[in-house]
């Protein structure tokens, strides 16, 4: 018995997006409890030239919702929109992304198989061609987990009281 492309991707995205949404609440509670300015967490980085928490959270939307939009159009590229600047705005963006993914029709995903997706970076000659299923499984999915885990790692490094279960979220257990 095979899987649908939707089953291989969307429940896993929703599981971790739900976790990230919970991390935003944990970050808010941490700032309130310690009298911290929330920019302390929103702007935090692992290293001077690495991107901040707000970018990591924005990228969870880019590599799930926008990935599906790219699979639909066949045209993909980096997202140059600025990141939401507050925990409330980051939370709202994740809420929108979750609602978008929950509403997807599994039958639509079946039409993605074999379709071309071309990823280009404007102003450069970077160009990579994928089938839509390989784009989603081999480009979007590892990117998604990369940014979600890095968002978690940033909060963990800053001393927010979280553990790996806060990343893994609601497991798809029986019953």
């Amino acid at each position, binding site marked *: *018995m*095979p*899987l*649908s*492309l939707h*089953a*291989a991707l969307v*429940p*896993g995205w929703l*599981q*971790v997006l739900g976790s990230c949404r919970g991390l935003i609440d944990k970050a808010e509670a941490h700032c309130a409890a310690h009298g911290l300015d929330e920019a302390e967490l929103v702007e935090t980085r*692992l*290293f001077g030239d*690495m991107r901040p928490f707000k970018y990591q959270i924005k990228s969870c939307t880019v590599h799930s919702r926008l990935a599906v939009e790219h699979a639909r159009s066949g045209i993909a590229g980096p997202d140059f929109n600025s990141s939401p600047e507050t925990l409330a705005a980051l939370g709202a963006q994740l809420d929108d992304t979750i609602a978008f993914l929950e509403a997807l029709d599994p039958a639509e995903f*079946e039409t993605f*198989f*074999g379709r071309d997706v071309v990823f280009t970076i404007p102003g450069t000659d970077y160009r*990579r*061609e*994928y*089938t839509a*299923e*390989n784009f989603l*499984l*081999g*480009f979007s*999915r*590892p*990117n998604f*987990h*990369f940014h979600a*885990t*890095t968002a*978690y*790692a940033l909060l*963990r*490094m800053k*001393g927010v009281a979280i553990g*790996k279960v806060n*990343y*893994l*979220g609601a*497991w*798809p*257990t*029986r*019953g």
Partner: protein
Amino acid sequence: MPLSLHAATIPGWLQVLGATRKLIDTARDHCAEHDLPQAELVDARLIEDMLPLKYQIKSCAVHSRGAIEGVRQGTFSPDMTEPPATFAALAERLDETIAFLEGLDPAELDRFIGRDMVFTIGSKFRREFTAENFLLGFSQPNLYFHATTAYDLLRMKGVKIGKGDFLGAMPVKG
């Protein structure tokens, strides 16, 4: 056109394991170049009470090869073995894991679908899954979590890597 369970998991796992395998060589070279003891990176942590790089790398094997072996038996529990403590031993662990996954028969994974799987910690904690939900909803996020944390640790320590070194060989056409 549906997807086999193998296609939904194993190529993606091999992609990130291959990238992580290369990160070990990059970390080793970084130590040689900066005259750092290996332990500086092998034992690096994001914060004191978090587990070190060597544990993150070991966990990539636990949540890929270990996950498949768990499904074969119908049961999985946390791995309590000591992580390899040198770059050479960590690399060997990943090489064995990659060879194991490359040797899997897709038909075997198809037979996993619908099979019972239980995750236990000691005698009190018990969660039941179908095998496919265990692999997709437990093992896979764990694998990506530990692989990314390993990358993040090296990045934080100033090793010269970028996201492309995490993404590895992307499945482009041709």
